[in-house]
């Protein structure tokens, strides 16, 4: 086992043991391998950097590098696609440890020789790793245990050099909960945070964005490729998407809205006209309506058949007839399941229920939800049509102090 710090600056010797250059950097190829292989070295000779393929090397240890040839190709070093330089791109940089769910800084890199190949096995993130580099060689006995992070758990490497696909493994990141991804992305610089979100699949990216502060959502989506931003917006819940679009410059928002699929576009567009701090601004358009002529049994059957169920199906909203929006009553899923299947919905539903006007202050509505212990509350317009619902998680965001909110898991979605 070898540490990068023990290799850097060490001599490169030819067959006769003559010193011909020094090691400036170690090149690895990041790819599907959990432990990326060393593909070569950047050697420095008389202020010139040249490439040394790993096939020219017979030995690599703390004394340096031993060549298997006397002929050196002194063409200057040029970075190739997919290559990462350990000293330049990894050492001292931050990375996301998927296992520990944290952002750490690389103090040293561990290299292990196995089956005639050198592979990067881990990142040393401990104090010992720092000491090894600070203190003169062999000055301190580093027998104490080191904390090495398995390279297989590296979800994202925050360096400015390589391309996004190379640095992050969206599969590994997606193992984390969106709340955690959001927290980690925010711990990085805004460039790197955006890259983390961009590397995720549309659905996870949308969920992650929903967990971020509004300004960050706007910034990330505004800087992103427009098509991609629209795809992610489609996956966000309509009320969140509407909030983001509302915060974007008008022109940009209209463009993004135009790029969205019809269905999601309509959902979001419907929410856009409402001010943030009103019931209309707080509501979402994802809810289930059922015509009142159905029986309880038919209603349950229909729920099961629905291709896409909204997150909030605890309350079902009973409307006047098929295709109508006139809200006649509300029935909780619990009552629906417990009721006699042949009973008409009209008899099972409650006709007395809490509702909100779209222009009502958001805070008042949120307080009402908390007071009556509701999970959701319908928003009704002047003609008695249901426009949307306000769910308890959105209400809580308004009621709870900010630092409290961050500690709570999301209840819906």
């Amino acid at each position, binding site marked *: 086992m070898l540490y990068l710090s023990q290799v850097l600056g060490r001599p490169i010797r030819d067959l006769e043991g003559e010193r011909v250059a020094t090691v400036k950097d170690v090149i690895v190829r990041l790819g599907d391998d959990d432990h990326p292989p060393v593909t070569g070295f950047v050697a420095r000779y008389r202020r010139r950097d040249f490439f040394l393929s790993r096939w020219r090397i017979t030995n690599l240890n703390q004394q340096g590098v031993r060549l298997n040839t006397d002929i050196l190709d002194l063409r200057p070093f040029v970075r190739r696609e997919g290559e990462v330089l350990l000293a330049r791109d990894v050492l001292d*940089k931050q990375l996301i440890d998927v296992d520990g769910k944290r952002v*750490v800084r690389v103090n040293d890199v561990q290299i292990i020789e196995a089956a005639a190949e050198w592979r990067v096995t881990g990142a040393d993130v401990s104090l010992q790793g720092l000491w090894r580099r*600070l203190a003169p060689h062999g000055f301190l006995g580093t027998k104490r245990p080191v904390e090495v992070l398995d390279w297989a758990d590296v979800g994202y490497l925050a360096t400015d050099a390589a391309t996004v696909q190379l640095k992050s493994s969206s599969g590994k990141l997606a193992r984390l909960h969106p709340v955690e991804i959001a927290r980690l992305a925010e711990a990085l610089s805004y460039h790197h945070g955006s890259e983390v979100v961009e590397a995720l699949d549309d659905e996870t990216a949308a969920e992650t964005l929903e967990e971020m502060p509004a300004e960050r959502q706007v910034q990330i989506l505004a800087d992103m490729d427009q098509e991609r931003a629209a795809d992610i917006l489609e996956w966000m819940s309509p009320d969140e998407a509407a909030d983001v679009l509302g915060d974007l410059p008008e022109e940009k928002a209209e463009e993004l809205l135009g790029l969205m699929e019809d269905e999601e576009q*309509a959902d979001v567009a419907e929410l856009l006209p409402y001010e943030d701090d009103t019931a209309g601004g707080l509501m979402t358009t994802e809810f289930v309506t059922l015509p009142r002529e159905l029986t309880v049994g038919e209603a349950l059957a229909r729920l099961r058949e629905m291709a896409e169920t909204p997150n909030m199906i605890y309350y079902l909203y009973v409307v006047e007839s*098929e295709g109508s929006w006139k809200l006649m009553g509300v029935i909780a899923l619990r009552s629906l399941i417990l009721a006699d299947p042949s009973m008409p919905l009209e008899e099972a539903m409650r006709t007395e229920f809490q509702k909100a006007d779209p222009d009502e202050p958001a805070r008042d509505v949120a307080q009402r939800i908390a007071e009556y212990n509701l999970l959701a509350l319908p928003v009704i317009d002047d003609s008695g049509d249901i426009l949307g619902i306000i769910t308890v998680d959105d209400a809580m965001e308004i009621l709870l102090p900010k630092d409290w909110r961050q500690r709570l898991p999301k209840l819906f979605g």
Partner: protein
Amino acid sequence: MAEPRAAVRAAGRRLMRRGARGVRSVGIWKRLLTYLAILGPGMITANAGNDAGGIATFASVGAEFGYRLLWILIPITISLGIVQEMCARMGAVTGKGLADLIRERFGVRWTALVMLALLVANAGVTVSEFVGIAAATELFGVPSFISVPLAAVVIWWLVVKGSYQRVERVFLLMSLVFLSYIVSAFLSKPDWTAVAVGLVKPTFSLEHAFLFSFVAIVGTTISPYMQVFVQSSVVEKGLTLEDYGKTKIDVWVGTVFAILIVFFIVVSTAATLHRNGIQISTAADAARALSPLAGRYAELLFGIGLFGASMLAAGVLPLATAYSISEALGFEKGVSRSFREAPIFLGVFTFLVAVGAAIAVIPNLPLIRVLLVTQVINGLLLPVVLFAVLRLVNDRELMGNKVNGTLYNLAAWLTAVVVTALSLLYLLVTLFPNLIHL
């Protein structure tokens, strides 16, 4: 029969036809709020320089040299503005703190050096804050061996329990008392012609006392921690290149405002104390500069301001230092962590608070003198941080086309070189006092 989802869709269309096609316009209020939110880091940081050590330094300068050193304020405004602006720009362009950048660009050894310098400088400033607390409470008759340990425990507790932010505003409000120096400066009827002459006519001397004051002024206005501060708060606020125009205005307005306060402190102390030949050796002396305004309540006013400013900085400074050091070395950080999770972070924080308080309670400590010495330490360590900043801000790989312009760079380098020369000169004069007599 349409499924419910499809019905929802229809509703969306219907609403859109009703004329709700546009996107909500951003209210004027919201715009104003964003502006105020951005207007911040530069203003706050520049004025953080006017803490216990700052007040003591400027008051002493005014009392000892009268208007003679006022001219320094003009080059210092430019230098402070440039240095702060460079760091704010780095924060906006890279989204990273200064400690982060030093680690990523210069490696472990340089990081260790810069962090050590920062630790020493900030330990010095922390001592000065606790000395400020001691001086303030002594004005009210509370001995320092009671007030200082109590303050240290309270600050430590508040920060570790995460409730410091709530009391922070109280201290901030208290420190606004120092604005009364402006009124006091006018009421003390200074000789405005002499003020004007002092402001434009440079005087220089190789006397130890003169150099001491000079380095202390530089050290307290352009403190190393301020560069780290301003960059971190730009990053924390999520300010990017898009808002950079506003951030730049904020930095310069903040700088000019901070130096303006300094100007009035020097003028009012010069007009009251220097005129009567009084040198400042206790806080009560310094408070006297406020007597044209407050009369016999001058000490009360001064005490409140000094206490607020010192408590504020005594909490924020160790905290920020612990953040920077953990950040640069890659350790867990945050006040919500336990000692086992974040030993370095909480260790540095506790160490600074403890050392600051311990030194401040030493019996018969010449408080004002200690305050000045800590500012000199700041001035001496400043070059280390300044050169790091200069190298980073001119790194094209990092900053792209946002590196310094030629003229700007010249002014920035000049600042760094002059500050360094001054520090070296001061060290020379201190170590070999006989040199100037040659």
